[in-house]
């Protein structure tokens, strides 16, 4: 039984999400070393935000990329200037992932057992 890092809605994560089991993903952090703040979902950051076509389940996930260039491209956007990129080698215990929305983009539902101290920053 996975212990999720936040309370998830019913039937979340979706049935077709899967354990990452060694897959490598990339995500941004405000500055190295990463902290818990860098792993907050949309719902944790913005309890009242509501976008059509973005399900409540997805708002409780974290965006990660399996392509470093696509992740680094985000650093040019106003919200992400000056941030750093993290490399995440996710194990089965770290949660469930699902490819969503666009090529190379995944939604990650994180478990409490994910160890932030093991994360490396790449840029």
């Amino acid at each position, binding site marked *: 039984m996975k212990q999720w890092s936040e309370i998830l809605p019913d039937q979340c994560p979706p049935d077709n999400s899967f354990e990452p089991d060694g897959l490598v993903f990339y995500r941004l952090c405000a500055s190295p070393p990463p902290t818990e703040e860098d792993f907050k979902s949309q719902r944790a950051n*913005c309890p009242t935000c509501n976008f059509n076509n973005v399900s409540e389940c997805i708002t409780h996930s974290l965006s990660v990329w399996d392509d470093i260039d696509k992740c680094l491209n985000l650093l040019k956007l106003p919200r992400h200037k000056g941030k750093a990129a993290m490399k995440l080698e996710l194990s089965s215990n770290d949660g469930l992932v699902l490819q969503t929305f666009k090529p190379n983009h995944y939604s990650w539902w994180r478990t409490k057992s994910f160890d932030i101290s093991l994360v490396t920053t790449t840029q």
Partner: protein
Amino acid sequence: MIKQLNISQILVYYDFPEIFVAVDSVGTNYLCLLVATDNGNTNYITTAISNKRLSSFINGSTDLRDIFEEPEIKQWFTFSQVIDSIEAIEWNEASLPQDFLPEKGFLYHKQLQGDELILNEVIEKRNAVVHLAVSDSEDNYSIDADNLGDIVKLYQVIIENSYKKSLIQRNIKDKKQYYIPPNYKLRAFASSYSSFNLHLYSTSQTDLFGNAMIEMGLEKFDEITKDFDNEEDFIAALRTVKGHTISSLKKLVKKLIDNNIKLKHKWFAPNQDKVHFTIIDKSKAEKIYAVLNLAEELAEETKTFLGYFVQVDVEKGTWRIYNLEDEKEYSGEATGQSLQGVTVETVNYKLVCQEIIEELKVTEKEKTKYVLQTIDKAE
């Protein structure tokens, strides 16, 4: 000044929609950019953008910073709430602060050179677009009308059946709502040179990220017409769509072989970051045809009925059954004595039949024939 906008397509998502396209009440596009998420709020800026410039941005030719630093109309709006519609308030300064501007060098895609036409069409149609180019040995820029008609019809049948097979295999809830013709039917709207190039667009259901349902059929078409070295792997790909898709594919490649026709298949959809392109020339068609002949069983489609007989003629070998699942009647044929002793109307049977679609002619409707394979009393 307040501008009412509605989200049309999300281009970049990272925990939040970072960049998206919205439209106003007269159809003008606005490019929206998330600049901050503070204290439980989002803060976006937006500016009007022409189809041409939007296409250039999506194509990877225009820098995001240029769009906001030098907008076509020197007017910006800002908003924080994105619910059903957006109320954007005019930004009353001469320029945007540096904090609101992206750094130089943000390109949406790696540049899609040479594919501007299909990309513009996708933006205009807000859906998937296909270019189906055909040429024969006589002329690179024209095609026999009969052959064109047959090829387009066969292509459409393959897309329809590939889509339905892919949908069955996907883990999607409430699938019934997606079995609708707009999700697999294409409409022709233009043609161009570069062989006889027919332009088709889809009216498929799409989500805000630009994912169009018809892509399942288009991807499958590419998969079953790809170059292959390993025959076993290719047969495995064909098995995922066995049945009508394969029988239509066989007819299509035979048509290409017999008439020495080259078929170019190009497609793009709003969510894609590359234009998909495959060519089937005579030699590739022969290679595919040989594999299809090796595995004849791939073309067989079976259909199971559960219900009671409405009519049976043992001598003629014909039957009609009321199928309980969809509450429709179906008729078919049987060989030998398989109908001997069946009870009409009061007993339910399970029938496994071979489903055969009668030889295709462009101007006629298809006829589906069911040939009884096995019959058992239902429990």
